[in-house]
């Protein structure tokens, strides 16, 4: 009973949740804006506070991931997805960059792409790297990201590869239900997330112009610094993770991530959708409650409408928690759909 009450408190914006939120926020403020973590990192033999952060992040994803795998062990989509998230975090987002650095190569994260990682299409940075990195970076953003997005939706990235999504779906599991489900928040999200994408594109274009013309503009440098401060540090880190226990785990992804915005637009024209089983919904609301992106899934399910929402990251938890098996994530291709209602039975004709 006491355990249940404590769990309720920390999962439902109780005192312990506010305390944890303060701790997470303070951690990110100290990490980004002070050097206090540097001596701690050096004391345990790490070269910088960023390596320490990477290690802690990987630990959080792994520990949270093991919890998630146990919780959803009967659901193979969840198990395979979570194992992938942990492996990608431990390799592409942690050990490979360390190894690259060890071998005097650029510290490159193969699991990140522009527009999430601004530098990877910032000409002054990317053109300073060896050729394979340049090719990977450009082809990654220009081809890999959108093509996979068309076939599988944004989930291939947002809930299988991305570190931000990885942390949300593992360490953040206890707070996923806190996302705001109102139509008002949906309206706000559409404005903010696309505004950030617009600013990201604008900044990138300006940086290319500046690089191409060989001119350096002081205002542009200020713009770039401000972008880094507000988007990468404050929104992705301090707010994004700091508010986990109060506003859910995908505040950054939903309201500000330019990558999520871009993939969301691709998703709307692509194949991915959530299929709703006809007339089987009991309107219980578990799907909406546990949607980390704040989608009111129940509104579609009870209206028998299969749907694709730009924000859906395809984590699959709505389908998992549905007690009537109403929802199914799929990469839908229209020709198969028309066949679906006319079941062709190939066996001998009936007598």
């Amino acid at each position: 009973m006491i355990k249940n009450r404590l769990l309720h408190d920390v999962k439902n914006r109780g005192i312990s949740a506010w305390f944890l939120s303060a701790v997470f926020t303070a951690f990110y403020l100290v990490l980004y804006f002070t050097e206090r973590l540097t001596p701690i990192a050096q004391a345990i033999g790490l070269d910088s506070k960023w390596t320490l952060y990477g290690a802690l992040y990987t630990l959080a994803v792994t520990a949270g991931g093991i919890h998630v795998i146990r919780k959803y062990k009967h659901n193979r989509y969840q198990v395979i997805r979570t194992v992938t998230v942990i492996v990608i975090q431990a390799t592409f987002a942690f050990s490979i960059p360390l190894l690259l650095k060890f071998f005097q190569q650029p510290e490159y994260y193969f699991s990140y792409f522009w527009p999430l990682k601004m530098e990877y299409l910032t000409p002054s940075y990317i053109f300073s790297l060896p050729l394979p990195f340049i090719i990977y970076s450009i082809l990654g953003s220009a081809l890999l990201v959108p093509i996979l997005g068309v076939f599988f939706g944004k989930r291939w990235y947002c809930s299988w590869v991305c570190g931000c999504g990885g942390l949300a779906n593992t360490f953040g599991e206890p707070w996923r239900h806190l996302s705001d489900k109102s139509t008002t928040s949906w309206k706000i999200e559409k404005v903010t997330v696309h505004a950030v994408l617009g600013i990201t594109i604008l900044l990138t274009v300006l940086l290319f112009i500046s690089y191409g013309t060989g001119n350096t503009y002081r205002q542009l440098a200020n713009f770039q610094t401000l972008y880094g401060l507000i988007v990468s540090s404050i929104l992705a880190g301090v707010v994004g993770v700091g508010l986990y226990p109060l506003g859910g785990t995908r505040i950054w992804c939903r309201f500000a991530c330019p990558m999520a915005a871009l993939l969301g637009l691709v998703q709307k024209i692509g194949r991915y959708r959530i299929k709703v089983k006809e007339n089987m919904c009991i309107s219980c609301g578990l799907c909406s409650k546990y949607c980390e992106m704040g989608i009111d899934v129940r509104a579609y399910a009870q209206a028998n409408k299969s749907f694709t929402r730009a924000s859906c990251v395809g984590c699959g938890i709505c389908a998992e928690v549905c007690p009537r098996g109403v929802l199914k994530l799929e990469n839908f291709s229209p020709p198969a759909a028309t066949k679906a209602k006319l079941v062709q039975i190939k066996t001998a004709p009936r007598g």
Partner: protein
Amino acid sequence: MHYVIIGNGVAGITAAFTLRDRDPHARIAIISGESDYFISRTALMYAFMDRLNLRDLEPFERKSYDAKKIERIRGWVTNLDAGIVTLNGVRKIHYDKLLLATGSVPIQPNWLGLESVRTGAVNFVSLQHLEACEQLAPTTRRAVVAGGGLIGVELVECLTHHGIEVDFLVRDSWYWPMALAKEEGEIIAAHMRRHGVKLHLNHEITQVTADAKGRVEAVKTSQNIEFPCQMLGICIGVRPAIDWIRGVTTARGIQVTNSFQTSLPNVWAAGDCAELPNAQIEQIWYSAKRQGELAAKAMLGDTVNYQAPLFYNSAKFFDIEYTTVGAAASESFFHQVPGKDISFRIMHENGAVTGFNMLGSRWDHTYFENWIHERRTLKEVLANLHQAQFDVEFGRIPTPHD
């Protein structure tokens, strides 16, 4: 035009929205004694288990009632006359067209001593029942739940979740013989036992005792065994909520035509409380939603000739999902995936498949419906069963044919 609907369950609310979609100008009022806003009754158990808050039980945003201009009136209707209903014995509400969607109430047993119990005996079908359960749970160490149907197992799951030791008393010789064959009943029984539930088959309560304060203390069963408990869940079924209704013809439920018309002009009935011409009462979520929509269409003047479609339903017993379509038959094919709580049963008769009972995996019931309507053979259905699967990606269960 003033439409009044009594009951804001799924039949009533579906009717209200259907009326509004078709008639943008009419006055529409919906009366409920239970709650200010429509709630999902099927989700009461998830609120009890702390997976949902009370507010999460509301399937529509509150502002949508204002947006759709649906007036909500709180209170119990006590009297029904031509053109007027009376609320709480005093307030008169005029109607042009009325829909009765009063739903169901729990069946109360006549166990010896039950009348002396003042607290501790609960049902589990309304918001008020949920409140009572939540109040009692912290002071309950042991509970008894009686009734081998769906609501019983839901309440058992909730109580178990709260660390309460539960004795689950089922009258029959396996769990839910009304819907399940013995094999499935045993799969579910074993599953419940693994969750710590003490399931007692062939037990029927005969006597209930209360302590000095009136709190339930123990029950005695037909096998003369006593089970101590501080909570007694009575889940032996529901019946149409028609006790207050006078002036329209009732039998078990409110008698309606195939267009949901009652014996009183301008009064319709739909959902759990309605009894169709063949004495059929459909008492599940899906039928209430369907009937609510069609009754509203009848009220709007459409020609409605309702025939209950092929039966289907779904449930979940702890972790085991259940889909059923169609009807039982003289023969059936049964297969259980070895070592798992997954089973397939396909009923057939005279060469044609008549029904499906599937445990532990997900199915698109519309395929099953088509196959039954098309009178497919068992062989054909088995060969194509995989097409109807609805399990998660990577999670497909091998079908018996494979």
